[in-house]
């Protein structure tokens, strides 16, 4: 017992994972289970002229073959966020069918589903499916897709434009640029990434005819959201007749937020077939069907005065949506990117315009950071470039432009130029701490020495902010969300004083079973072992929105904390009755109520028992000790920090070696430092992956060339170093825990830090910018070019 908030408690869920006893969706085997294999388009754009299923249907073990014809009356996958054109028109939202009947629109588009007795038989039968395609021209580059005459992804979407959108004050920003002493301008592609959670997606559909009830097991970050979309939008089946279970899920990083066709297909087909159907992606399918991330083509400019003060920011981005709108796709380049362009700087004028376009590629949606890494990348590259061109130190130019500290209590929140109001922040404090840890002055001297010896060492900064813990329903509703973004909890105190809590949040690596238990045990003053956290089963948990956008603790944890407050409030009334004392004379601490100034007391367990065996109970009070709570926060949370990367570039090979990495983050109050540090580590690694290694590459025909781990490089152990992680603590002023999100900070910050470091290393050669990923070849070519000119 004792204080648990802030303790590095070892995770209570770990035992099942380290002993091989976890239950991921693909581990589930049900009686009579059949296996599905999805036949996918090998072409980026083609008309399906004919599908002959007869040979496949008669193949050994085959139970059913479904094509687009079979699901033509079933709705497509819905989009959960609406963004309108600047002129007020609704965004273009073409149907995203479960199986395509007419035209395939990206490599991997679903064409048919074969259900067989075994996985191997289903796959064998796929070879016998006779599909005739008429191959059409494709476009994968979003900048080319909007040109006149480009192939159309959807015939009724002119120039492939899904919507255009703007934020900020254009006139004021143009004015700031007109008055500027210096303007920095950069053009780049924030390249397309493929999330690659190590567990491939998996779904099992079950239909129990005797109970008229469906069950869907799925590797999802948000089972209730899937149930809602599946029932109300796609299949039109009653929600109360569907149970969605997300058991242990092997990482998500955003890619498992979205409602995918396979979830609907196995659920729908389970009733047709009358047996459970399991589908599990092979990695090659993950590459072409899991929603991708990023893929922005951007022109960004920053205006400075002669002293390095930022006067204005202008951003124009073409954002690739892929072939169809994934669940949250329209929100990513707009409300999670355009609204983040204030960064940590007191920039007085900002304007951003976004053009979202369809291409013949896999749909693009939220991937760890989702819009915020893109915003941070352009800001941090511009600020760094500004420093270099103005002859300033990159730390100094940041210091000069930081928003001054504010706690959101005594000082109000900071109103940005781009809609958001920051909750609390002390940006310079993270910079100071990071500089101290890295030993900045000494490091600059070492860099100078190294340069004399022909060695290229670089130091790169990233001072970032993010908006997470997404967020007030009224606000996101006004911005186009078709869902609320609250979270729920049920606190069920058992008669023996043990506590089961049910959360609408979902853990797929984040350790909720520990962190949430710490909140319960700490608040109620009971041992950690007396708490069980349940998540992931819609038949057990209250309706909840799930986990993404670093929202679990800030929103779900707060819902839990508010439920615990209700338990204490009712418990106090029961205790007062039993102790024959006035409520105001009681104090609750360490799991017991005491009459102040006496030794009269009653334990939490005794009160719980009384609640369920209410022989002697306050008059008129309901028995039981259980509360359901929905929490809709007042605002996003805004974590921030400073990351510094140190790299060395080998001028002979172009290889970038990471030497050190320092991260000082501020995520508000920390419940479990072990888990928070772990989130930061993983995030940093993913951002470094974008900077140095990862890129989804399509050829001119729309084929994904980087379609396996052999061509798409995610960071391996020997690509990275141990990270030097520290933090400052600026509590969130508007939630009961004081916490901010911690799941995406690392990814948001690290990409820019690493690229800034490499550019810093190569600055003596006159290299000003490099396009990601900074592969040895790309860096080597830049070095050769710089030497030649």
């Amino acid at each position: 017992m004792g204080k648990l908030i802030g303790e590095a408690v070892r995770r209570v869920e770990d035992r099942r994972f380290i002993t091989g006893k976890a239950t991921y969706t693909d581990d589930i085997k049900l009686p009579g289970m059949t296996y599905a294999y999805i036949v996918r388009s090998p072409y980026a754009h083609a008309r399906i002229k004919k599908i002959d299923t007869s040979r496949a249907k008669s193949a050994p073990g085959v139970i059913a073959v479904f094509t687009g014809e079979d699901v033509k009356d079933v709705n497509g996958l819905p989009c959960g966020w609406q963004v309108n054109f600047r002129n007020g028109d609704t965004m273009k939202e073409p149907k995203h069918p479960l199986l395509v009947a007419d035209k395939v629109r990206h490599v991997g588009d679903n064409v048919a589903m074969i259900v067989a007795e075994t996985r191997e038989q289903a796959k064998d039968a796929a070879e016998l499916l006779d599909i005739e395609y008429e191959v059409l021209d494709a476009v994968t580059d979003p900048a080319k897709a909007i040109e006149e005459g480009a192939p159309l992804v959807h015939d009724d979407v002119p120039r492939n434009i899904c919507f255009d959108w703007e934020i900020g004050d254009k006139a004021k920003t143009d004015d700031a640029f007109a008055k500027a002493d210096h303007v920095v301008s950069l053009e780049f592609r924030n390249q397309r990434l493929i999330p690659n959670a190590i567990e491939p997606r998996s779904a099992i559909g079950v239909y129990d005819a005797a109970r008229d009830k469906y069950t869907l097991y799925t590797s999802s970050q948000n089972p209730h959201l899937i149930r809602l979309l599946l029932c109300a939008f796609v299949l039109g089946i009653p929600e109360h007749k569907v149970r969605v279970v997300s058991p242990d899920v092997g990482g998500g990083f955003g890619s498992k937020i979205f409602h995918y066709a396979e979830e609907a297909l196995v659920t729908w087909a389970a009733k047709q077939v009358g047996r459970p159907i399991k589908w599990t992606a092979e990695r090659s399918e993950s590459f072409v069907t899991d929603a991708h991330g990023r893929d922005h083509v951007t022109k960004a400019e920053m205006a400075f005065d002669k002293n390095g003060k930022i006067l204005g920011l202008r951003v124009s981005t073409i954002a690739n949506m892929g072939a169809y709108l994934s669940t949250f796709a329209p929100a990513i380049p707009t409300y999670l990117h355009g609204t983040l362009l204030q960064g940590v700087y007191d920039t007085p004028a900002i304007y951003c315009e976004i053009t979202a376009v369809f291409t013949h590629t896999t749909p693009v949606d939220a991937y760890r950071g989702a819009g915020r890494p893109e915003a941070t990348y352009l800001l941090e590259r511009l600020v760094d470039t500004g420093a270099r061109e103005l002859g300033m130190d990159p730390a100094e130019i940041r210091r000069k432009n930081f928003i001054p500290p504010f706690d959101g209590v005594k000082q109000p929140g900071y109103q940005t130029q781009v809609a958001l109001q920051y909750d609390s922040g002390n940006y310079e404090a993270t910079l100071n701490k990071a500089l101290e840890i890295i030993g900045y002055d000494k490091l600059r001297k070492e860099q100078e020495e190294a340069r004399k010896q022909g060695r290229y060492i670089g130091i790169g900064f990233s001072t970032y902010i993010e908006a997470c813990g997404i967020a007030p329903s009224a606000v996101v509703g006004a911005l186009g969300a078709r869902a609320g973004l609250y979270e729920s909890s049920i606190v069920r105190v058992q008669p023996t004083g043990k506590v089961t809590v049910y959360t609408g949040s979902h853990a797929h690596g984040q350790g909720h079973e520990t962190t949430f238990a710490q909140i319960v045990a700490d608040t109620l003053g009971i041992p950690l072992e007396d708490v069980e956290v349940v998540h992931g089963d819609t038949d057990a948990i209250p309706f909840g929105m799930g986990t993404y956008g670093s929202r679990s603790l800030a929103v779900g944890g707060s819902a839990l904390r508010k439920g615990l407050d209700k338990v204490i409030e009712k418990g106090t009334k029961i205790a007062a009755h039993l102790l024959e004392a006035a409520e105001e004379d009681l104090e609750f601490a360490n799991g017991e109520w005491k009459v102040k100034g006496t030794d009269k007391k009653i334990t939490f367990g005794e009160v719980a028992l009384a609640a369920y065996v209410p022989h002697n109970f306050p008059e008129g009070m309901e028995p039981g000790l259980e509360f359901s709570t929905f929490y809709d926060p007042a605002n996003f949370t805004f974590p921030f920090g400073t990351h510094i990367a140190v790299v060395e570039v080998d001028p002979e090979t172009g290889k970038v070696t990471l030497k050190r990495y320092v991260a000082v983050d501020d995520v508000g109050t920390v419940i479990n430092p072990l888990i928070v540090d772990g989130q930061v580590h993983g995030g940093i690694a993913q951002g470094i992956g974008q900077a140095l290694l990862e890129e989804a590459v399509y050829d001119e025909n729309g084929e994904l060339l980087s379609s396996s781990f052999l061509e798409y490089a995610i960071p391996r152990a020997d690509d990275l170093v141990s990270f030097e992680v520290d933090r400052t603590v600026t509590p969130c002023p508007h939630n009961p825990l004081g916490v901010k999100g911690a799941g995406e900070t690392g990814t948001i910050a690290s990409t820019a830090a690493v690229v800034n470091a490499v550019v810093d290393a190569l600055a003596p050669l006159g290299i000003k910018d490099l396009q990601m990923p900074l592969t040895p070849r790309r860096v080597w070519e830049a070095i050769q070019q710089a030497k030649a000119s």
Partner: protein
Amino acid sequence: MEIPIKLTVNGEVVERRVEPRLLLVNFLRDVLGLTGTHVGCDTSSCGACTILMDGKAVKSCTLLAVQADGAELVTVEGLAKNGELHPIQEGFWQEHGLQCGFCTPGMIMAAYQLLEENPNPSEEEIRHALEGNYCRCTGYHNIVKSVQYAAKKLNR
């Protein structure tokens, strides 16, 4: 056509008839129900399926079940003895070496072989030994610490 195989899995003798094309990992998962060994890719890259075969860490997605005929296999389920965690498992727990847990069994088995061959690995040696096992959650930072913890404990 099915082929009879006989092998030892986690100390128990197993005899089955299997299709020649059945992958060893699917034999473990689907036939024996040992679902602690995972499938994360189809190119032998990710290492989620790593097990020990006659003392060597192997990727069980890259072997056929029939190739394991006569072999001695250890999977993650075979490490803990009498409810007591193996020091490597303990290391992963103590040092928060896992998040989603999907790569963890393979990571533990790869670390097992490393520590058999090199009881005192440097950080660089640990990173090199685990480069065939992908983790998307931890950035490997705490995995390195987990292996260091285990090395220290095993050497005691």
